[in-house]
């Protein structure tokens, strides 16, 4: 769903960015786990216990054939049966912008896991803003294509949009990382919303102090 065959040798940058927030021994649910690259990274390099949920059966089959614990299912429908606080972390790597019901899924993950980690393409990036202003066209954040209909997120959103959604479902941001760049906290949101093409949010339940 997210990565084609032959790409599994290369560690995806957002996976590396996500993995720094996972501690050894943590039980992690990877929602939309594709063919399990992130799960493998978390198990091998972070000594985490990874579980996956994936809608495409081809990805599920590859995961299980690799020995990963993955369930074929749909995040938009199958999360309610997971018990409260069952996981240390739930991850949506480049998945949140593809969901039919992102608010529902994020809310469910907030219930299921102590921390929720999402990576997403930031459509608040200055180049997106500039391109829309000057050309009147929605630019692609992909280097391989410039067609809005062939690539990019199904639900384009900015860092600020994602922060608003997090608050809506009762999550607060504990850390932000620019994929391929440094990490920060909530105070770096405005800057990163201009400068980062891809972001990782780490969120926990409850309102942050001072929010």
């Amino acid at each position, binding site marked *: 769903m997210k990565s084609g065959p032959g790409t599994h040798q290369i560690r995806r940058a957002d996976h590396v960015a996500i993995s720094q927030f996972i501690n050894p021994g943590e039980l992690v649910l990877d929602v939309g786990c594709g063919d399990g690259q992130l799960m493998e990274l978390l198990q091998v390099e972070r000594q985490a216990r990874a579980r996956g949920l994936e809608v495409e059966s081809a990805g599920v089959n590859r995961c*299980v054939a690799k*020995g990963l614990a993955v369930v074929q299912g749909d995040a938009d429908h199958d999360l309610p*049966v997971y018990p409260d606080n069952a996981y240390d972390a739930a991850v949506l790597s480049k998945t949140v912008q593809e969901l039919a019901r992102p608010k529902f899924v994020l809310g469910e993950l907030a219930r299921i896991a102590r921390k929720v980690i999402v990576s997403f393409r930031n459509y608040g990036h200055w180049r997106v803003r500039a391109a829309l202003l000057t050309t009147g066209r929605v630019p692609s954040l992909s280097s391989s294509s410039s067609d809005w209909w062939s690539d990019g997120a199904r639900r384009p959103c900015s860092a600020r949009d994602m922060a608003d959604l997090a608050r809506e479902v009762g999550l607060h941001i504990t850390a932000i990382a620019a994929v391929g760049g440094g990490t920060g906290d909530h105070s770096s949101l405005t800057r990163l919303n201009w400068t980062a093409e891809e972001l990782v949010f780490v969120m926990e339940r409850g309102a942050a102090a001072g929010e």
Partner: protein
Amino acid sequence: MSSQALTLSGTDGLRRLSIASPDQPFQLDSGRRLDQVEIAYETWGKLSPTRDNVVIVCHALTLDQFAASPNPVTGRPAWWPTVVGPGRPVDTDRFYVICSNILGGCMGTTGPASKRPDGSFWGTDFPVITVADMVRAQIALLDGLEIKDVFLAVGGSIGGMQVLEWTIQAPDRVFAAIPIAVAARQSAQNIGFYEVGRQAIMADPNWKNGAYIAAGTRPDRGLAVARMAAHITYLSESALKRKFDRRLQDRTSKTFGFDADFQIESYLRHQGQIFVDRFDANSYLYITRAMDYFDIAADHAGQLANAFRGIKTRFCVFSFSSDWHYTPEEARDLVRALNAAGCETSYVSIDTDKGHDAFFVEEPEFEAAMTGFIDAAAEARGLAKRGSL
């Protein structure tokens, strides 16, 4: 108690173990007891010195213990050579594989075709049994063989029901479980189809109220019809169309009679005929009845997840897209319950047009996923790696 002392070997070449006696009767869910129970079983591979490499294969309705080698009684080949054998997903070079004929069966295990202690045949006086009873008998078999831990329990259809029952009855003994093409409860549709089969058997005048062995007759017609009806549910509409469609059997035009004009008729008649030679009609009644009674949630206050709560077994559930006997949706219900119970669960839905019986046929994706799950479980259990022996 030495297991060897209890091992019986009949003139038929089947290996058996006695698991009950008048002093230690076998208690059934129905409340009745059996004073005499023999379990016929077969094994492949070598038991490791620490006895940690045991795989239980649970067979489906009409099969037997000969999963990986030919049946010496019927002469039929192994029924699961794609899955159980050297280098196969259930690798007999690494694992000690045990498959036993289910309670109520007719390949050496005590069932309605067996003799009572007084020498007469049980027939329909045999008590109605459940899937839980079958698994209780398998656990007794393992106790008799002085084996405690099961690394893996695997099986499809009613074999999958037994796998689920194993994890519920002996959660501390089963490390990994692969239920295939199964549901946590028998559907009304399946109960209906099996009732058609039972009625066909009982309508056969040779059935003699179940006492046909003593009467020297065989309800072959009824049993064949039962098999034909059930066999349709093991296939899929698209496979029927691909294999037969409306093609005629060895003729160029319709005969305007009731001979087997169509290939599908000829095929089903053949399936019915070869079945009656190897299966006991009363066994068919009892085993299908056990499937009808199967409903895990009903035994756990209506909550399927309750049955699996606290179970440490890791599961890998398989379903087949064109299976309408046990549908992918039913498998998904099971997976949801396993997730809700917090069990470590994988679920693989295989795209195929081969229907319920797909797990007997070579399906590369099915075998690859099963191998991956088993190898990962073996590594987690600390067992020898594939090809290292």
